[in-house]
């Protein structure tokens, strides 16, 4: 028996503790919004947030998230309402076939929430673990940048540098 919080609700999974989180969510709790694309931690379609951080749920046995806070795509927006990120992705054309979309949205959601920057290069780096074969990423990057800018405007701190620094920036400073 494994107890965890999923989208704000305490849930109990009665199956085997080595069941993968992706299967617990999809088959155990009927939350089929989380997708499985490769089963090797490579495509990012199964990305969910654990304690606010993106992880690939195909690589997590449920026993490892006992007592943790899990967020899935179903936590965003509502039946009739889209979250600002979902809305921006719809309007910018960031979702095509849609199979990578839930994982992409969760990665981007974590980025926006923890203060990620609106610089395209930084966003690209943040999304680099989520493969998309349809869009060429441009519209996705545009949508995320737009939401970050909206966030910064709301907070009135558009001039303040973002907290999460870009690893690209750090890497380009490397010695050659």
């Amino acid at each position, binding site marked *: 028996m494994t107890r965890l919080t999923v989208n704000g609700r305490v849930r109990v999974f009665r199956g085997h503790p080595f069941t993968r989180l992706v299967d617990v969510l*999809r088959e155990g709790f009927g*939350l*089929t*919004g*989380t*997708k*499985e*694309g*490769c*089963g*090797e931690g*490579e*495509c990012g*379609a199964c990305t969910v947030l654990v304690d606010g951080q993106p992880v690939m749920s195909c690589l997590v046995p449920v026993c490892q998230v006992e007592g943790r806070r899990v967020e*899935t*795509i*179903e936590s*965003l*927006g509502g039946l009739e309402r*889209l979250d600002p990120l*979902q809305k921006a*992705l*719809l*309007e*910018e*054309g960031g*979702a*095509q*076939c*849609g*199979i*990578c*979309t*839930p994982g992409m*949205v969760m990665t981007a959601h974590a980025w926006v929430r923890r203060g990620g920057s609106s610089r*395209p290069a930084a*966003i*690209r*780096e943040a*999304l*680099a*673990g*989520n*493969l*998309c*074969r*349809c*869009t*060429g*990423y*441009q*519209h*996705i*990057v545009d949508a995320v940048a737009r939401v970050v800018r909206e966030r910064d405007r709301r907070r009135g701190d558009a001039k303040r540098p973002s907290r999460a620094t870009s690893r*690209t920036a750090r890497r380009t400073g490397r010695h*050659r």
Partner: protein
Amino acid sequence: MKKKRSGVLRPEGPDKLRGLARYVDDLPFPGGLHGATLRSTVPRGRIRAIRFDPDFPWDECVTATAADIPGQNCVALIEEDQPLLADGEVRHAMEPIVLVAHAERHRVYEALGHIHVEYEPLEPVLSMEDALEAKVPVRAPDNVIKRISIDKGDVDGALAGADVVVEGEYRVPHQEQAYIENQGMTARFEEDGTLLVEGSLQCPYYVQKALVRAFALPKEKVRVVQATTGGGFGGKEEYPSMVAGHAALLARKAGRPVKIVYDRTEDMVATTKRHPARVRHRTGLTREGKLVAQDIDVLMDGGAYATLSPVVLSRGALHATGPYECPNVRVRACMVATNTPPNGAFRGFGAPQTLFAAELHWERIAGALKKDALRLRRLNLVREGSETATGQVLHESVGARDVLEAVVRRGRYSEKKREYARWNRSRRHPSWRGIGVSVCHHGAGFTGSGEAFLASRVALALTRKGEIRVLTSSTEIGQGTIAAFTGLAARTLGVPEEWVTIERADTGLVPDSGPTVASRTCMIVGGLVERAAQRLRERILESTGRMPSTRAEMVREARRLCGREPALRVEEQYTHPPEIRWDEETYRGDAYPVYGYGATVVDLEVDRTTFEVRVRRLTTAVDVGRALSPRLVEGQVMGGVTQALGYALLENADYHDGVMQNPQLTNYLIPTALDTPPLDVMIVQRPYSRGPLGAKGVGELPMDIPAPAVAAAVHDATGLLLTELPILPERILEAFSSDPAHRQR
């Protein structure tokens, strides 16, 4: 020309963004079994015996072999050479032999490990050159699946008289579609004996045709429904018929629903890929650079069965010249069979292979003539009134020059070429920089008389609730069919988009509008939607005098119009314009109703230490006639060029003994957000008179263009002409090492 985001938002978008869209593996599946496939481990051999471990509890499982197939053991497509399950002989590794189903997903894989197939190995043919030599016959009579010849003028005479003759050979490898949703299908038999399959697919009526044959059922007893589909790119054109047949066979034996969903490795190792090809050019030109003769030899590897290879070859051959006018052309194209998993449809469908050669060949020609490749293209590019290799006169909507000039300007091609020449002279810079251009055409719709044979149908229904339903078998696989048809129907009818619903692709509900392939959805099926909408509008206007402007008014009118029927239905069928003529025997005439055009400028750098290539910017222009929704067109173009960048630089399907050695996304690398440069897309509109609102096809065009521009840019940067894809750093190093005369590091 404009770059503006407008057009219909995807009606299905919100569900996808909320995770509510149901893909095949998300469908409720009570009481169902999970199916899996035992595949051959040798590239060619006779099956001596199939043994089931006696200790394994087989009573928990359902198994099926070729002997269980009630109808004909084939996946019916163009030919009927491919068995649904191998019987007696295997012709490629990873060929399906036995199916197993079990209530527990992982138990089914365990069961596979307890089945043993004994083979008598036969000598395989693994390369296209060996196949062509035909020392080992693997397909009667000469290992050739299809040959195509295109002849125009007197090539030998023209070559003899040419000022310059330039030769070159180019090679392209397999490419995996790498849709993020793997293949998957569910099947069950309903009480009245109807076989119902639902899954991830592009062409419901192809699946129906295959199942009718394999299960010896009448058409009405086979219903095929598309679930939300997570990408296709051609990879879900023919292979879903195989998966559906397997699931159905197990369901029939089990008397229960069966689901087969491939995992990534199985999908990559077993399903179809883009055809590898070798293309040779011998080109005669005047001293000024005007084409006088193109002699082109195309060889493609079809794999073990015909699948769609004959038509892939056809499209490859028809695009082999590039978008240029030349008085004397000879194309000899040949598709051979090898003992490797069959290749099949993938966005571009033969054209990216031959266009890579045609476009990169200009770099060689430019070198031989000491002239700029861009100027040479301008001299030879097709225009309105040009005659193609098949004798087709291009009457209208020829945007070749527009797209080329657009990218050259926006991509600052000439300035950068000069700038980079200076940059590359300094050894202090950590990279070499280069810029490359390419331009291409892509025939919209089926080749030749294909559309006439298909005779596609579309229906529109006005329901009693005042709702307009569009009934087509064209599938939404990410490209925006739903949005495009919604917009088209609403605009033509003069009603709000919210009143229009696109019926799901279900052979029980929608007529056969042909497959969702060949960039035909918008132009051909969209054209039928437009015509049906016009007729429905006329019917409504006849009765009401004007189009209802409120929903309440529409419901009132709809009730009146429907009378006792649940809906007022109008149907349209494709009629082939009589002036579009094609001779399949001689390959003369109008190969396609019209062509889309695209051009791209690739700006990149090559690291001087590691030879890694980084694309800095990619500028593309497409002529799609008229963009029904610029946002959707932009999305298609960006996705297509990114797949092409993968083709050019990363995607390296590694085959040994007829098996892909890297069937994981860890080892077969597709571009991430960091590998993809900022993409700049321009839409050029040269309307086509027969397209809906002037639209031509768009889906495949962007896949055709970037690879040769990448190779040209690498050439510009390093002085090395790499004629084989992908252009890996290892290959650049190798080229440097084997050619010490080149620029020293």
